[in-house]
């Protein structure tokens, strides 16, 4: 069943159940399955009425009911969605909008500051829709931002106007299983992010493969960024397929508070979240009954956490069990839509990343995990070379090393490619940052490492440059800190550099003069 049928079926089967809940100030707002289904159709028709068929349409915004309705509106017709990380600096968003050949853009009010640059630098963009139902207020705010930009009025439209275009309009054709649904950008090891192409079938079969038995009306709380495949498939498509009420966490600041408000039964988290929650539990006096702690921290009803994106220490599985919460770790990547293997209530083993899902076939090549199946991507958008390096004879090379035990559970024990995986699940390409910062004259050599959940820049300053500029050791450190601060100010939190190590000696190099990454901590004369 493709996503279009899935949504149609849920809208009729669970019509009166609340599909989405969200907070506006302190009020809980709700959208029923029937309303969600109707809005999706109006948006799909509206896009067609406004000339958008077989077009690429980008998304820049935080999780919201508008985001998911428009996203489903796009992929259940002939268009292709391009969900982008709204935390990226504007220049990166502009680059990805252009590289994905997007002609339309959905943007949230929080990102209104980026609209002007996008209009000026993305010539293909014909229309921008604002993900908000606060029409007057939103338009007023955007007009101020775009003061002086010619003709912006014709390009900007509100979410409600798009729906109006869909009234009494013709519906867009239903996509076939092979049709491209989404281009999803992921960190590349070469320093340039790659657009993962996922088809309708890729998504649909992954949703089916991760199904677990729960009753309609189940309460889920979504805390992960909606543009990630993990959240889209496991929180949203999977939740919507079983009639769950998906509650949107408005800020990571309020995760614990919102668990108290929504009282979720199931949540999807990255390991970093589990680690932070555990710190709160650890601080509570041991004499407090566990049932009370559960109410205070988890909002009473939480019984299951699915986690993935990075490895979780099994210690937390044991600890959370004391509060009646089962943690199931899984493994995946955008290239596999995304789930490859998962621990599930009926089959799990702590420390493993579960058994391969039903549509994923696994084999190993020199220890590397290879995957084949209906959820494996079509390739990287406009990157034939990178595609042929990753997809060989239908097998996807994951870049992770692992093994399978005698019970069929998969374990990971290393990485083939150079990618930093932080415990918030974000993948960071060190080369991407090194290339950017390496352009600064004072930075002679630079290597980025991931330590204690933060990025560290190891820099060997350009001594000649420092001498010409008359910089003392102290000045060099101050100047480098300034360079890093400036870089950090434009980056999403996971790409920020949390500390600098100024080296006395150049890095150790191999015979081809490449820096040996495994020996970056050695700082001795050569």
């Amino acid at each position, binding site marked *: 069943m493709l996503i279009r049928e899935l949504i149609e079926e849920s809208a009729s089967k669970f019509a009166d159940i609340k599909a989405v809940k969200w907070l506006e100030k302190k009020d809980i707002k709700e959208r029923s399955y029937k309303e969600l289904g109707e809005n999706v159709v109006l948006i799909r028709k509206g896009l067609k009425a406004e000339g958008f068929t077989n077009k690429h349409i980008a998304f820049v915004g935080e999780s919201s009911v508008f985001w998911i309705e428009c996203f489903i509106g796009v992929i259940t017709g002939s268009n292709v969605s391009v969900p982008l990380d709204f935390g990226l600096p504007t220049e990166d968003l502009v680059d990805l909008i252009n590289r994905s050949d997007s002609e339309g853009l959905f943007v949230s009010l929080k990102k209104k500051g980026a609209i002007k640059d996008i209009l000026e630098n993305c010539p293909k963009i014909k229309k921008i829709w604002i993900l908000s139902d606060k029409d007057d207020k939103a338009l007023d705010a955007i007009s101020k931002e775009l003061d002086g930009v010619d003709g912006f009025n014709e390009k900007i439209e509100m979410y409600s106007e798009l729906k109006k275009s869909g009234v009494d309009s013709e519906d867009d054709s239903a996509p076939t299983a092979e049709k491209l649904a989404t281009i999803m950008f992921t960190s590349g090891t070469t320093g340039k992010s790659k657009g993962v192409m996922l088809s309708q079938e890729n998504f649909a079969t992954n949703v089916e493969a991760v199904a677990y038995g729960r009753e309609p009306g189940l309460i889920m709380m979504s805390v992960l960024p909606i543009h990630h495949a993990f959240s889209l498939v496991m929180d949203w498509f999977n939740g919507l397929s079983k009639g769950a009420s998906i509650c949107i966490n408005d800020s*990571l*600041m309020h*995760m614990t*508070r919102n668990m108290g408000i929504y009282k979720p039964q199931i949540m999807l988290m990255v390991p970093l979240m589990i*680690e*932070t929650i555990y710190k*709160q539990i650890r601080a509570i006096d041991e004499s407090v009954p566990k049932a009370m702690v559960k109410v205070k921290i988890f909002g009473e009803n939480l019984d299951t956490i699915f986690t993935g994106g990075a490895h979780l220490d099994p210690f937390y599985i044991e600890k959370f069990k004391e509060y009646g919460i089962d943690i199931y770790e899984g493994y995946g990547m955008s290239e596999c839509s995304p789930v490859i293997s998962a621990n599930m209530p009926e089959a799990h083993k702590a420390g493993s990343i579960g058994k391969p899902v039903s549509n994923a076939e696994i084999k190993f090549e020199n220890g590397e995990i290879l995957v084949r199946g209906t959820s494996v991507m079509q390739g990287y958008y406009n990157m034939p070379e990178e595609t042929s390096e990753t997809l060989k004879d239908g097998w996807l090379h994951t870049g992770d090393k692992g093994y399978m035990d005698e019970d069929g559970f998969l374990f990971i024990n290393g990485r083939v490619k150079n990618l930093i995986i932080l415990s918030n699940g974000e993948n960071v390409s060190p080369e991407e940052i090194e290339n950017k910062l390496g352009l600064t004259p004072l930075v002679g050599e630079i290597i980025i490492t991931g330590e204690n959940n*933060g990025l560290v820049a190891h820099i060997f300053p350009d001594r000649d440059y420092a001498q010409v500029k008359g910089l003392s050791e102290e000045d060099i450190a101050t100047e480098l800190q300034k360079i890093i601060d400036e870089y950090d100010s434009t980056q999403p939190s*996971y790409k920020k550099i949390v500390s600098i190590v100024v080296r006395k000696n150049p890095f150790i190099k191999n015979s081809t003069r490449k820096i040996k990454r495994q020996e970056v901590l050695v700082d001795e004369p050569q």
Partner: protein
Amino acid sequence: MSKEMEFKTIVAQYANVNAEDITNDMKFREDLGFTSLDFMSFLGELEDTFDVELEEENAEGVYTIGDALELLEKLS
């Protein structure tokens, strides 16, 4: 408990140090080992404990305990 001590007790739960040992010049990341999410969660607890409203942007430029105490004072 004084407001400052109450504040430091919240900090201590993320840092695994005694509230009494926390000084105003300590940096959240480097000295106390806060992750980015610890910091966000900490801000949420400040809101609930001291009945203030914080925006994520408020936290920009907050590096040390002293910075955060100053911010809290400004918002109270």
